[in-house]
C-alpha cells in the first residue's frame, strides 16, 4: 500500500505539516514570525538537524528515552486503558525536541478535522512492557487450550468408534532391553486410544521387565514364556514367533476385543500408525521400513549395486493400479548372503525375516473361538503350526488382506535390530549402586595443575578394568564432573578435585 518513495513521502509529510492549518504553533507563528520563541525553536531545530546529520541518527529519541524512560514505560504497563488525551500528552513529551516540530502539533490538528475520532493519526509510542518474558501460568493455559482444541478436532475429524489397540511385544532381559522397551513404552503412552499391552517375556516373568513396564501406567498383561532366548538369530526369530502366538492365545482366552498389532521392542513406531490401523476391518498389512545396519567393510558391493543401496528396503503390501492387493514387497536378502549375522555376537548384518510380524494387524475377533461374523477364511488358532513365520499362516487365502497406509505407500514403522553382545553386562535396573570410583589419573586434564594438597571431604579413587565410562567422586561433585567430554579420559585425583571444588566456590 505504501509507496517506497522515501524522499518524496518524507518531503510531503514535512511540507504538509508546515502547511496544515490550525494548531498552536502555526497560530503563534502566523502573525509574528519573528517572535523570539519561534526563532528559538528554529535555531534549536537547525542545531539538532546538524547534530543528527553528523551522528547519523535522530538522537532526540535517545535523549528522551534516558530522561523519561522509567516514568513513561512503567506508566504504559500499569495503565493499559488510557484516554487519547493522555496519549497526546505523552506524545508531546516525546516529541518536544523539534527536529520535527510539525508532527507534535499535528495531533490537535487531526482532532479537529476528524469528527470526534478517538483514534489519532500521527506518531505513537511503541508500547513495550518492562517484563517481556511469558508468564508460565499463561503458557500452561495456552497449552491446555491447544490440547482442548486438538481433542475437539479429533472428535470431529478423527476416527469414529475407536477400537482398543492390543499390542503384543515379545521381550527378554538384556542390555538393550531398557533402551528398546522404553521407546516402545513411550510411543504407546502417547496413543490416544484405549490400549492393552501384552508383554511376553522369554525366560519367565522377571522383576526388571515388570518394573519397567509398570512405569507406563498402561493396562499391561505380563506373560512369561518358559524358554530361554537362544543365541542364534534364526532361533531367536522362531522363539519370538512362538511367543507371539502365545500372546494371541491369551487374547483368545480373555476374549479381548480390539485390534491386535505386533510391536517388537526394537521397532520404532509413528503415531500415524495407530490412527491408520483403526481402519482395519479384519486383517490388514502396513509397510515396514527396514533399516538394515550395514557393515562398513563392503565397498565392493556398494560400487556394484549403487542404486539399490540408496533406497530403503520396505516390507509390505504391493498394490496394482486399482489399489487392490497384488502381492508383497519382501526383504531381499541376496546382497547380504554370507555376510549376515548368525550368532548374536557376529559382526555381520542382522537381517529381518521375509515378512515381519509387525507389518500385520488383525481384528481380535479372528482369534476368538466363537464370534458371530468371523469370516471363514481364518484358521483356528489351536490348529496353527507352531513354526509359523508370519500371521499370514492364519489365513487360508492371503488375498483378503487389506492394505493400509494408502496401499502401503506410507511407511509408519521401522525395523532395526541392534543388540549388544551376549556377554555384555549392565547394572541391574540401571542403577549404579555402590557408586563408581575414579580409575586412573588423567594425563590431560582440562583444568590447570593443582596447587598443593588440601584436605578433602571424601575419598575418591578407583580403577575399572575396561575403558568404559568413568565417573568421579562423591555424590555432591559427581554431577559437576560427569560430563560427556570426559567419557574417555580418566578422572583426576582427589586433590585436583578438591581444588577445583574450591575454585568453583
Amino acid at each position, binding site marked *: 500500500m505504501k509507496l517506497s518513495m522515501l524522499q518524496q513521502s518524507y518531503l510531503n509529510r514535512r511540507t504538509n505539516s508546515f502547511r496544515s492549518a490550525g494548531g498552536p504553533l502555526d497560530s503563534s507563528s502566523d502573525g509574528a514570525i519573528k517572535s523570539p520563541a519561534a526563532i528559538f525553536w528554529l535555531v534549536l531545530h537547525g542545531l539538532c538537524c546538524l547534530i543528527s546529520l553528523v551522528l547519523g541518527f535522530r538522537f532526540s529519541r535517545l535523549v528522551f528515552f534516558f530522561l523519561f524512560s522509567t516514568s513513561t514505560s512503567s506508566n504504559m504497563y500499569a495503565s*493499559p486503558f488510557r484516554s487519547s488525551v493522555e496519549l497526546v500528552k505523552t506524545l508531546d513529551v516525546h516529541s518536544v525536541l523539534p527536529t520535527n516540530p510539525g508532527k507534535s502539533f499535528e495531533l490537535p490538528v487531526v482532532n479537529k478535522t476528524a469528527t470526534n475520532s478517538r483514534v489519532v493519526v*500521527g506518531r*505513537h509510542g511503541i508500547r*513495550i512492557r518492562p517484563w517481556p*518474558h511469558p508468564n508460565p501460568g499463561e503458557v500452561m*493455559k495456552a497449552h491446555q*487450550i491447544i490440547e482442548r482444541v486438538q481433542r475437539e478436532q479429533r472428535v470431529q475429524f478423527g476416527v469414529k468408534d475407536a477400537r482398543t489397540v492390543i499390542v503384543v511385544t515379545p521381550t527378554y532381559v538384556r542390555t538393550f532391553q531398557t533402551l528398546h522397551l522404553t521407546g516402545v513404552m513411550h510411543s504407546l503412552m502417547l496413543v490416544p486410544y484405549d490400549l492393552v499391552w501384552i508383554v511376553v517375556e522369554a525366560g519367565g516373568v522377571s522383576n526388571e521387565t515388570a518394573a519397567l513396564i509398570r512405569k507406563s501406567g498402561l493396562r499391561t498383561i505380563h506373560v512369561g514364556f518358559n524358554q530361554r532366548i537362544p543365541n542364534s538369530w534364526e532361533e531367536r526369530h522362531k522363539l519370538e514367533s512362538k511367543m507371539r502366538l502365545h500372546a494371541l492365545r491369551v487374547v483368545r482366552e480373555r476374549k479381548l476385543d480390539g485390534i491386535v498389532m505386533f510391536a517388537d521392542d526394537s521397532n520404532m513406531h509413528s503415531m500415524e500408525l495407530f490412527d491408520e490401523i483403526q481402519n482395519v476391518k479384519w486383517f490388514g498389512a502396513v509397510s515396514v521400513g527396514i533399516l538394515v545396519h550395514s557393515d562398513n567393510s563392503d565397498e565392493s558391493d556398494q560400487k556394484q549395486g549403487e542404486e539399490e543401496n540408496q533406497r530403503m528396503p520396505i516390507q509390505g503390501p504391493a498394490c496394482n493400479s486399482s489399489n487392490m492387493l497384488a502381492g508383497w514387497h519382501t526383504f531381499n536378502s541376496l546382497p547380504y548372503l554370507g555376510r549376515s549375522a548368525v550368532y548374536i555376537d557376529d559382526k555381520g548384518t542382522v537381517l529381518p525375516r521375509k515378512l515381519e510380524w509387525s507389518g500385520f494387524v488383525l481384528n481380535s475377533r479372528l482369534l476368538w473361538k466363537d464370534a458371530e461374523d468371523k469370516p471363514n477364511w481364518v484358521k483356528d488358532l489351536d490348529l496353527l503350526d507352531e513354526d509359523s513365520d508370519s500371521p499370514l499362516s492364519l489365513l487360508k487365502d492371503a488375498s483378503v488382506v487389506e492394505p493400509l497406509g494408502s496401499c502401503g505407500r506410507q511407511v509408519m514403522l521401522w525395523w532395526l535390530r541392534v543388540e549388544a553382545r551376549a556377554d555384555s553386562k549392565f547394572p541391574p535396573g540401571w542403577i549404579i549402586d555402590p557408586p563408581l570410583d575414579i580409575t586412573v589419573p588423567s594425563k590431560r586434564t582440562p583444568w590447570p595443575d593443582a596447587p598443593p594438597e588440601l584436605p578433602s571431604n571424601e575419598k575418591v579413587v578407583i580403577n575399572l578394568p575396561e575403558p568404559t565410562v568413568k565417573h568421579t567422586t562423591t555424590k555432591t561433585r559427581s554431577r559437576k564432573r560427569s560430563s560427556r567430554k570426559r567419557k574417555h579420559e580418566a578422572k583426576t585425583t582427589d586433590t585436583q578435585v578438591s581444588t577445583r571444588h574450591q575454585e568453583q566456590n
Partner: protein
Amino acid sequence: MKIWMWIFAAFVLGFAWSIAAEQGLRTERISGSAGDVLEDDPVGRLKVYVYELPSKYNKKILQKDPRCLTHMFAAEIYMHRFLLSSPVRTLNPEEADWFYTPIYETCDLTPNGLPLPFKSPRMMRSSIQLISTNWPYWNRTEGADHFFVVPHDFGACFHYQEEKAIERGILPLLQRATLVQTFGQQNHVCLKEGSITIPPYAPPQKMQAHQIPPDTPRSIFVYFRGLFYDVNNDPEGGYYARGARAAVWENFKSNPLFDISTDHPTTYYEDMQRAIFCLCPLGWAPWSPRLVEAVVFGCIPVIIADDIVLPFADAIPWEEIGVFVAEEAVPNLDTILTSIPPEVILRKQRLLANPSMKRAMLFPQPAQPGDAFHQILNGLARKLPHDKSIYLKPGEKILNWTAGPVGDLKPW
C-alpha cells in the same frame, strides 16, 4: 396407562431433541442482526442498471495492466463482471433501483504493484460528468441512487496516506452516492453514513489449492506473517500501524507461543490452518486480506485496529467470531488470549467452520449463492426503498462541482 403414554411421549421428544442438538454440534449457524441475513437471496429484491461507459474507463485500463485481476483491490473488476451477467441486472434504466458505474479507478499501478491514487479523483469526476450528461438519472437524484466500488486504502478519499486522505475527504461529487469500500473506521472522514464495507479481494482458487486435511492438529497458538516496521517509509516505527505492529514484535518476538516473523513462507496458507489465532493488526490502513484468509482457514482473527468497521458488519456478528484487542492493550496480548475460556474458543471455531461464513468473504468466479457479491447486493437491497426526498426538485442543485483541490478539476 395414561401416565405411561406421557412418559413415552416425553422420551421420544427428548430423543429427537438430542439428535437435533447433535446435528448442530459441529457448526453453528450465524444469526445476524436480522436473522440469517447471510443466506438471503437478493434476486428479485432489487434491480441494478449498469452504465455503458467507454472502454477507456475499464477494459483498456485492465488491458494495460492485468495485475489488477489478482491484487487485493480486484473487487471492483469482479463486481463489474458479476453484474453484467447477474439476474439483478436490468437493461431498462427506468425500473432500476440502483445504478452502477463500471470504473476501475484503482488499476493505475506502480512497477511494484501498488496503486497510485493521484489520477483516480479526476477519473471519477470525468466519469460522473459523462453519466450526468448522457443520462438523466444522475441529475435526478445527484447520485443518491448510484453506487460505486472504491476499494482503495481509504475509500473515496483517494490517498494512501491517512493524513492526506483525511485532508482531502471524500470526493465531493460522491457525497450522496453509496460507496462500496473496503475501508471502515468509525467516526472517520473517509467512511460516510450508509457505506457498505466489503472484504478485500483474496484469490479463491489459490486458497482452495492450499487446503490441508482438517484433522491436522492445530498446534500453533498465535500466527502472523508480515511487516512490523515499514523500513522504507517509517524506519523508526511508531507511525506505521500506529505502533501496534512494532509493539507486537517487541513484546512477543521471543515468546514461544507466538509464531510471528516477516518471512514469506510458501506454506503461509497451510500454516494458518494449523494455527488457533491469527493476528490481523492494522497497517497503513486498518483493513487487510488477512481477515479473509483467517476466516477461510478457520483461524480465529485477532483484530488489533481501534474503531475498525469490519466487512458486512450488519450481517456478520464479528464480536462472536473474532477477538478484538485495543491497540493500547497489545503488550498484554498473551494474557488476553490465554484467558479466553476454551468453550468460547471452540464456539468461535464452530462459527468459523460454517460454510456460509467462508462463502460471504470470497469473490469466486463464477459467482455462487451467498458469496460476497450477493452480500453486497443484500446490503444494497436493505437500503431500499429509496426515500422520496432523494429526488431533487427541478433546478435544485446540491453538489458543488468545483469543490476539492484544484488538481482534481483537470480533465482526465
